[in-house]
């Protein structure tokens, strides 16, 4: 079986295995052992199967496409140099970025339009499969320990019933794994998706899984509200995404990434990538014909059909359609903003920590929220310079805001949540400044260390039964494994390492981002703020991560009640920590021989993005330096040193404040009270949105409802009332005039009868008189009138 046929099969099975688990647990969950204990095994088995299949797929991939030694390895400056030379002539041979695509089945087909479920598999897909299934496996194992409370009846201390006391409910262990399986299925669906429509489908599905998981403790109002908030805010992003989809679909008639094969009697059609970056133009980005025609509809209408094709170039050069492409890119990015919790839609992610900690680790740090980044990476060929700049700035703003909030957060999971937001901002920024590989590299490494951090925090919460860091402290003694692995995570996230020698995974990915940001800033001095943001973000990251670690594990216990009950977590929870810690260390390494994530990613690099890009019309001329250039000495060294310096500074400051307590945090907070309050209030985004969107929306809703009742119904009722009044008038006319006339006639007849009755005297003699008089009168009348003789 060749790779093209093998990979969809393997990955497809890997994708569907969690679905099978979901269905099984849905129907048989409560019957799986006591309290559904075995549901964990079913789900874990499924995800392990996925992992194994993904690994097989990875093996098949690597067998067919071995990672080349001399690519732009992150640490290999010389190799990058030598490679840079031949780039001018070498237009990246097709083999360089292999992708397999195809459709499994069609949802809708009408004419040339087709919506289908299909696959698009390249190195990135395979990598993401491995990463997602691996982390998911770890978290499944972890969760089977963490969620053991749900195996028996639970008393939820956070829910206060109206009658006093706390909620007592049966556990729902299977339901957790059911949702987790569905989530894995959906997430893998996004990864394998062969077209944007399928992405959108699974996009929504992960959203609803997230809703289920955040709202797992749905008895808590905060949890269900957070779940709703997450979904609705995501829908705001999807609103933009839909617009992007419409812009693409309306103009191009396809949402497939790659060219589609001729199936079902349908002809082969170019996909989005080759439409936007046609091979004929050296894979340079340009506005596709469809969009040009769409934008030039007025012109097209005036042009004879035969001449349209010839004029497209003219219209393109006039800039027609580029706005459409911009809208498409920004629209799709809006979806990513929602899903990846970027500014301005990041408000849902901290609240999403209402879910169980394994969920936070898997869904809200490592995978689902990374889906936005993944999609930007996947969709990268279609993004124009302007869109990339938007992405970069959104990322920068996000990373700064989130990091500042994380500085003052005291809930251990919220710190990590804001850290996640911030790191996602990093990735977005990296992608936005042209660092395709850097951004996705960071996505992978971040997935490892962030899930590790979350699991560690879960371990801590599990031990302390509180999220509040102010009640912790000194836990390193009772929880050495947790403390150690968490330290590894913290070091990884701040990008610790020995400059130019070796480092944790974060060291490599963050370095790459800094380097690219620096290169971009140098190429576009107007946007050098981006590099400042990255560097400052690195400092802040280091500070708040070590603030967290010091507050939690170092020093003396602040709350003895908490400290006394603290204990190391069971092995089933610690084992995943260790595994993830190892990966958090080594994930960034490039083995001798070139095998490593960066080079693997390079295989998936979209054609045409390696050379860098210039262009842009909305925000001025932009220059995106080729990513491999950032590995050149000048940039690289500066970036690495900056990263090291900022991280070190951050750690040092944290140590001064929280470990050595030379600087009192309280004093600092007092000095910068307005700033502190502002940050502790999380920049008041929730309040702002509530006032800006929720309140007006409800007001409009009430207005609409009120219009129905107060205006439309009143008009209708008024009409009905008018009709009734008219009917009343009519009835009055009937009664008084018509009936009156009738009655008057009747009365007249009656009265006449009464009067004539008097003639009916009953006196025979009078009757005789009447007869005679009548006869005489008749004769007289007849003779008068007819003037004839009476007889004859």
């Amino acid at each position, binding site marked *: 079986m060749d790779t093209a046929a093998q990979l969809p099969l393997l990955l497809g099975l890997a994708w569907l295995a969690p679905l099978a688990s979901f269905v099984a647990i849905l129907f048989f969950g409560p019957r799986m052992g006591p309290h559904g204990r075995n549901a964990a095994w079913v789900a874990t088995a499924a995800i392990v199967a996925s992992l194994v299949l993904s690994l097989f797929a990875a093996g098949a991939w690597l067998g067919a496409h071995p990672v080349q030694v001399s690519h732009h390895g992150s640490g290999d400056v010389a190799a990058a140099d030598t490679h840079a030379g031949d780039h001018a002539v070498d237009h990246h041979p097709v083999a360089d970025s292999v992708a397999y695509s195809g459709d499994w089945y069609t949802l809708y087909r009408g004419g040339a339009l087709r919506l289908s479920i299909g696959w698009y598999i390249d190195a990135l897909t395979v990598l993401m499969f491995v990463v997602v299934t691996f982390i998911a496996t770890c978290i499944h194992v972890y969760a089977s320990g963490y969620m053991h409370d749900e195996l028996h009846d639970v008393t939820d201390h956070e829910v206060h019933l109206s009658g006093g006391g706390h909620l007592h409910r049966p556990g729902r262990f299977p339901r957790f794994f059911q949702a987790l399986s569905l989530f894995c299925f959906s997430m893998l669906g996004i990864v394998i998706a062969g077209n944007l429509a399928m992405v959108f489908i699974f996009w929504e599905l992960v959203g609803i899984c997230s809703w289920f998981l955040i709202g797992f403790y749905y008895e808590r109002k905060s949890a269900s509200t957070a779940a709703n908030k997450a979904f609705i805010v995501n829908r705001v992003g999807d609103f933009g995404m839909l617009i992007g989809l419409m812009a693409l679909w309306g103009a191009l008639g396809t949402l497939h990434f790659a060219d589609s094969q001729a199936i079902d009697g349908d002809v082969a059609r170019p996909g989005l990538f080759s439409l936007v970056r046609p091979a004929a133009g050296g894979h340079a980005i340009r506005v596709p014909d469809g969009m040009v025609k769409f934008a030039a509809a007025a012109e097209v209408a005036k042009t004879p059909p035969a001449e349209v094709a010839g004029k497209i170039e003219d219209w393109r050069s006039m800039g027609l359609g580029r706005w459409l492409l911009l809208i498409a890119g920004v629209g799709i990015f809006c979806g990513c903003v929602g899903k990846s919790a970027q500014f301005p839609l990041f408000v849902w992610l901290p609240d999403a920590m209402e879910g169980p900690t394994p969920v936070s680790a898997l869904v809200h740090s490592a995978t689902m929220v990374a889906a936005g980044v993944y999609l930007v990476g996947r969709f990268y060929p279609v993004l124009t310079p302007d869109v990339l700049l938007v992405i970069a700035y959104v990322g920068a703003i996000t990373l700064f805001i989130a990091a500042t909030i994380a500085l003052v957060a005291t809930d251990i999971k919220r710190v990590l949540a804001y850290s996640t937001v911030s790191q996602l901002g990093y990735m977005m920024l990296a992608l936005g400044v042209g660092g395709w590989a850097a951004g996705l590299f960071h996505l992978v490494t971040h997935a490892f260390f962030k899930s590790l951090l979350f699991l560690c925090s879960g371990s801590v919460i599990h031990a302390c039964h509180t999220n509040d860091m102010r009640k912790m402290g000194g836990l390193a003694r009772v929880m050495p494994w947790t403390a150690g692995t968490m330290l590894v995570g913290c070091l990884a996230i701040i990008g610790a390492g020995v400059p130019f020698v070796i480092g944790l995974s974060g060291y490599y990915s963050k370095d790459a981002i800094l380097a690219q940001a620096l290169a971009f800033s140098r190429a576009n001095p107007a946007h050098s703020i981006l590099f400042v943001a990255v560097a400052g973000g690195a400092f802040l990251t280091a500070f708040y991560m070590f603030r967290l670690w010091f507050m939690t594990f170092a020093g003396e216990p602040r709350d003895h009640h908490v400290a006394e009950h603290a204990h190391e977590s069971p092995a089933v929870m610690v084992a995943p920590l260790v595994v993830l810690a190892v990966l958090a260390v080594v994930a960034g390494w490039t083995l001798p021989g070139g095998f490593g994530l960066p080079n693997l990613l390079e295989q998936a690099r979209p054609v045409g993005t390696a050379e860098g890009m210039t262009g842009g019309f909305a925000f001025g001329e932009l220059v995106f330096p080729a990513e491999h250039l950032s590995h050149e000495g000048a940039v690289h060294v500066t970036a690495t040193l900056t990263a090291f310096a900022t991280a070190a500074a951050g750690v040092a400051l944290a140590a001064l404040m929280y470990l050595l307590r030379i600087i009192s945090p309280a004093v600092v907070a007092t000095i910068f009270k307005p700033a502190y309050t502002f940050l502790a209030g999380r920049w008041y985004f929730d309040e702002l949105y509530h006032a800006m969107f929720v309140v007006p929306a409800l007001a409009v809703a009430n207005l609409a409802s009120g219009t129905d009742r107060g205006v439309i119904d009143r008009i209708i009722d008024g009409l009905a009332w008018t009709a009734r009044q008219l009917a009343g008038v009519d009835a009055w006319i009937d009664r008084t005039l018509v009936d009156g006339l009738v009655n008057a006639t009747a009365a007249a007849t009656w009265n006449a009868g009464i009067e004539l009755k008097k003639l009916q005297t009953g006196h025979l003699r009078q009757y005789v008189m009447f007869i*005679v008089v009548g006869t005489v009168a008749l004769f007289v009348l007849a003779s008068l009138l007819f003037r004839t003789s009476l007889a004859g």
Partner: protein
Amino acid sequence: MTGCVMLAAVNFHTMLFYLFAILACGFAIGVVLADNVVRMALYLVFSLGATAGLFFLAGAEFIGAMQLMIYVGGTLVLLVFGVMLTAQAPFVSIKTSTGDRVLAGVVAASLLALLLQAALSVDAWRRPGLGEVGPPAATPIGTALVGIRVDDPPGAPAAGVRSGYLLPFEIVSVHLLVVLVGAAYLARAKRRRTARAIEVAASVEPAAEPRLRSTGAGAASALAQGGVR
């Protein structure tokens, strides 16, 4: 001059006619003027008898005979019986008010004027006839009554299409029978109410009358309400 004319015109037939005419008219007026019912009956007999004479003069001997037999002989006997049966003192003569009489007189006068005018307005009617009395007409009448016409009916279209009076005759016969039966039924002796009983009934009756009236008024008001509804 006038007297001469009259005298010249007088012959036996004419004289008899005038005699009977005056008798008939006179006794008829007598019936009108008489107050006593017995006298009225007597005058009526005379009047009818005189009329029978007129019939004879007109050549309708059979009718005249019938007039005498049936009317004078039958009907009046009946009337006289009636007079006798009811001829208790208060009822023998019931006075009519003068006003009624005057009114009746005026009306009757106008009616008479009308009739006379009609009788005299046709020229042909004033032409005297042959003045001869033909053979008795009893035979043709008799045959006509059994369906055979031996005379020439006026305006008969052709010989052979002659219809008699068999059917009317039969109808009249049956009619008479029915009448007799009916008369017998009506006049049969029922529970005889005394004057006392009648007084009681009369005192009760007014009580019933208002009820009837009110029912009528009720119906009227119901009708009016129905109209309103």
